[in-house]
């Protein structure tokens, strides 16, 4: 059975801290891994990773994939209160590539 597991499930940090969010997966025929950020409403897309070892970066956020050890990390440096959100990881699974999500990581950034 395809699985996507995120850890930790929740995290509280202070502004300025650096955080690392983890996503591990076990899927047949891996194609890509996607990260989303969800504040109060719809999840918004952050990154899609397909190749091992190539970092994707957007401002203070970065992400990398390790296809040998079957995981990805999402790093956020110099956190701000606006980074408080649920961070979701997802992987396409099955013949028609439906997206399977992990349970999400709830990040709270305190002033």
């Amino acid at each position: 059975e395809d699985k996507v597991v995120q850890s930790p499930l929740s995290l509280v940090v202070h502004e300025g801290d650096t955080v690392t969010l983890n996503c591990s997966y076990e899927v047949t025929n891996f194609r890509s891994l996607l990260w989303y950020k969800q504040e109060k409403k719809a999840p918004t897309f952050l990154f899609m990773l397909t190749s091992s070892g190539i970092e994707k970066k957007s401002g203070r956020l970065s992400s990398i994939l390790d296809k040998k050890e079957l995981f990805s990390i999402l790093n956020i440096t110099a956190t701000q209160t606006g980074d408080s959100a649920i961070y979701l990881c997802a992987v396409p699974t099955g013949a028609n590539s439906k997206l399977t999500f992990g349970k999400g990581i709830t990040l709270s950034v305190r002033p």
Partner: protein
Amino acid sequence: DVKVTQSSRYLVKRTGEKVFLECVQDMDHENMFWYRQDPGLGLRLIYFSYDVKMKEKGDIPEGYSVSREKKERFSLILESASTNQTSMYLCASRLIDRAYTGELFFGEGSRLTVL
């Protein structure tokens, strides 16, 4: 910009009522999805449509059905709502690429409460 519109943001229904949740996307995407999101359980896939009139069960299809008669519209139907279907429902669409790796675009969500 891709727009995925869910017709109802908040609904309150009674046990046993039939409920329709509508989702429309304006970018000619082939794939459309219905997820429900519950605290501690993440997003769980209810149904997936990979093209018009084509559908595939997700992880939790029991108690739900779907309809995709036109490419832009994907409806989720609760034939007889129950209290355990109280949840946030998220619709999403995706333009498939050759490797089926495309990102999902989400609607704003429909929060359903069943009393």
